[in-house]
């Protein structure tokens, strides 16, 4: 009974606090976004599975400029939406960075989270909760409200599976703070839910092209780079400065950044596209070079002669896979050039790699009609010399 009274009293206090804050916002500030010193409040509507899986809930997301000029966003949320009115509810302030990545949570002074039967969180529980909220692939991602209330087993983390029926199983105990599955579920979906895309959208709309390049594309963190590339593409920024900066990031960052960049490059005009591809190929490692060759072989863009001509001049520097993919692509596009033929003839004799020489031989054999007499003789010599290896 005492416990019940305590919960009711706390909930009333929270409501009063919320109401006061809300009235302040509504009266003082215009709709959708509200500016307050270094803070802006945004009204956003998002789906939260602990509240309603179909109907969005409106929230007041606060954007704050930090002293180091970066931004953070926060939202005050109920610690738990258990649907049964038996849970202790306190306000939790949840924080995200400017990319929408969950950062941390804070409680009001004196507040504490509780587990089942009113047992307060221990320090270990709070640490575990941090881990839970940072676990992007948590089983909680696919759990819905109805799954949580099937039995007490969930809270206990028990498993009730039999060999015969393969009957109901429950969440892995590891995935939650034991005894606080509702809290974990509620907060996890706040931390990792729709709010992320809302924050990214808000931030993107505020950033200039220059901001995106200087502060995001040049950032050490690949997530920032990906955000910058996606944003520049969304904003249709395809000027030379942006293209060169993105290429630089593609070549110096992790491969996923390169892949994001390829999507950006695909949106360039034909001329810029092939120029960009050539630069990326020439400066890239094997994985990136192969990605370039594949991308070009799949693109619907015309006007590839310059690109193939340029690559033909450099075939002596290709490894076997690059030769294979390049010549396959050349054949598909029916590209021919005396430069390529001559370079391949050289490979017959001079390549240290027999596989490369043999691949050149196969390619040349296929278009023998285009060869000069001298080239044909060289081709025949190769055939004779390696007749047992062809």
């Amino acid at each position, binding site marked *: 009974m005492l416990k019940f009274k305590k919960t009711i009293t706390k909930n009333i206090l929270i409501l009063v606090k919320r109401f006061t804050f809300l009235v302040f916002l509504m009266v003082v500030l215009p709709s959708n976004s509200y500016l307050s010193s270094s803070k802006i409040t945004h009204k956003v509507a998002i789906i939260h599975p602990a509240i309603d899986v179909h109907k969005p809930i409106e929230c007041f997301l606060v954007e704050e400029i930090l002293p180091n000029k970066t931004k953070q966003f926060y939202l005050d949320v109920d610690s738990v939406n258990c649907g049964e009115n038996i849970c202790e509810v306190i306000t939790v302030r949840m924080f995200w960075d400017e990319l929408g990545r969950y950062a941390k949570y804070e409680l009001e002074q004196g507040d504490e989270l509780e587990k089942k039967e009113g047992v307060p969180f221990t320090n270990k529980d709070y640490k575990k909760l941090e881990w839970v909220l940072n676990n992007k692939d948590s089983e909680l991602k696919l759990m819905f409200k109805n799954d949580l209330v099937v039995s*007490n087993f969930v809270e206990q983390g028990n498993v009730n*599976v039999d*060999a015969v*029926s*393969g009957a*109901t199983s429950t969440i892995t105990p590891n995935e939650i703070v034991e005894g606080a599955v509702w809290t974990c579920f509620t907060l996890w979906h706040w931390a990792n839910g729709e709010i992320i895309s809302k924050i990214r959208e808000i931030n993107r709309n505020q950033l200039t092209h220059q901001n995106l390049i200087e502060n995001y594309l040049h950032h050490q963190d690949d997530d920032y780079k990906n955000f910058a590339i996606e944003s520049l593409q969304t904003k249709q920024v395809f000027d030379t400065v942006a293209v060169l900066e993105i290429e630089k990031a593609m070549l110096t960052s992790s491969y996923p950044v390169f892949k994001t960049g390829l999507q950006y490059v695909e949106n360039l005009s034909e001329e810029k596209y092939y120029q960009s591809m050539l630069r990326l190929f020439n400066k890239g490692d094997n994985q990136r070079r192969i990605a370039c060759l594949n991308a070009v072989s799949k693109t619907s863009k015309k006007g590839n002669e310059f690109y193939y001509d340029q690559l033909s001049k450099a075939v002596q520097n290709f490894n076997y896979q690059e030769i294979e993919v390049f010549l396959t692509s050349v054949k598909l596009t029916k590209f021919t050039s005396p430069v390529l033929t001559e370079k391949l003839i050289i490979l017959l004799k001079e390549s240290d790699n027999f596989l490369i020489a043999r691949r050149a031989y196969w390619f040349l054999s296929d278009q023998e009609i285009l060869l000069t007499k001298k080239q044909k003789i060289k081709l025949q010599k190769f055939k004779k010399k390696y007749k047992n290896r062809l």
Partner: protein
Amino acid sequence: MKRRNFIKNVAGATVAASVLPIATSCKSLDGVAQDINKENKAVSGNGGEEQWHQLGTGKKVPNPDRKKTVIYDVAVVGAGVAGISAAVAAARNGAKTVLINDRPVLGGNASSEIRVTLNGVNRLKSGKAERETGIVEEIMLENRLYNPQQSYPVWDHIVYDYVVREPNLTVMLNTQAIDANMDGNKIVSARCWQLTTETEFTIKAAIFIDSSGDGLMAAKAGALYRTGREGKAEFNEKYAPDVADGWQMGASILLQGKDHGKPMPYTPPTFVKKYDGDNANHERKINNYLDGYWWVELGSDHDIVDVQEENRHDLMGYLHGVWDYIKNSGKFPDSENYALEWVGSLPGRRESRRFIGDHILSEKDLTEHKHFDDAIGFGGWSLDEHNPSGILDIKERPSFFHQRFKTVYQVPFSSLYSKNISNLMFAGRNASLTHIALSSTRIQGTCALMGQAVGTAATICVAKGITPREVRNKHIKQLQEMLMRDDVYIPKVVANDPKDLAKKASVIFGSSTKTGDAKNVINGISRDIDGQINHWQSESLPAVFQMEWENPVTLSKVEVKCDTNLQKNITMRKQPLNDWLKKTFITTVPPELIKVLDLEARVNGKWIKVGEKTSNIARLIKFDFDQVKTTAIRIHLKETYGFKTAKLFEVRAYES
């Protein structure tokens, strides 16, 4: 006419005992009474020599005493998932094989007669499955494609089709192996009774595999066995009782309900046994009306075979008692529109005889992940020992999930052949195990791996004229290599087949790489396991995977192991999946599985197509083609059952 001659030959074997093995299904042995009577001695009785007046022929003949002798290389007794795997493995590897089943449908506990979910390593501590591959995987994948309605009777036929299409395999249904004829410590033949044709078969074979669960034939052969629970001390088992006793886990009868959309009253039959659900342990909770309750279970503390019919009757009564509690106690008003759609009449058994092999697998072998140099497969279901007394003690938990496994454990071959009968092997719950080890290994997926191992081992025995023990002692590497080639995963064992020419390729690459090194396909481990990546994955589709040799090789076979997401369960369930269960179970063909692909070989510099699959449904994809001299192969991966990328775990290439 040919058919008639064929039957004559089989019948003649009763006296000649030298008939050729038959290669067609036993359903051909439908018998022609007149012919049979020429060979068989008439049964004397009141009817005498003219007992049977054949109106069709106008003749009067004695009642037929049908007896036939047939000869095979390998005889498999019991066609549960273990027996099926054993028989198919033996047949595919070249042995003339017969599969003998005492029921009208295949599948044992998984059949429509019993409907036990075909579980395997469904859920390790990680929360993920580690599905069994090989033959059981092939069947399960086909079921997902051809039986989307999840019908158990249709499943029966999918299994039947899977088995009878093997050219080296004969299936005998409604046939029980009731005795063994011996020559010293060797089984010469099994005496079988085929219920539907009133025929006594003498089945001769070089190797016998008893995968029947109860193991009547093996027991009749004199194979050593035990029943009950070992005491703690014997194998140093933490979860065993202090003192040995006779307890055997029970058998269960299941049910399936259906929502009819209107009130469906229920009146229990007279044999109902009341279920006091109000006072039952909370783990015996009623949480659905679609599936049965596995804890409707009765065992025995001495001889479970002896009391099986009494238990069956009581279990049927308890099943109705539970349903009566659901429908008529007033505590489950939302069950109003549900009615029984199917009720089992045949209990699914968990435990009876456990035969003794050279090694008795015990708790610590599993929990300490002991390494066996004769490992042939794995298990990983939790130590799931059911409650002594079953439904007779409803206040107790229905089962004790003693311990779950972090990763899979090995199952050794030396637990799968008899210690004292030289040509007898086992697969399934009757293998050489302690009671506690059985609580995990009894799961059908694990039993299937045992089956595939003994079926494959039997072919080595036949080819070399040796015993299973000699396979273990002298040819275990060969057995392991054969199993791994046939897509069995053996923990901590790396495949290294010297005939595999893929390992000699000079260059291996994919057209793009999302994860994994292309060379992983020849590293000898054909699944991602214990955090180690053993695959190559394309970034997108279509994709090309290529191997190149400096010197030409001659090839006629290329075998590819692809992705079926072994961390998800594809077993057929009786209840729809909720959103959370969809994380670990799927009800479709795994979307990762490659559906359309082809294989090209580079011959004289030109790519020629040597194989194509337009609706692949197997994890192990085999391309067989006329021999070609080639310098490279490439696999075009075109389409999956849903995913936008493709993974390969292994590529092998063979001359023949």
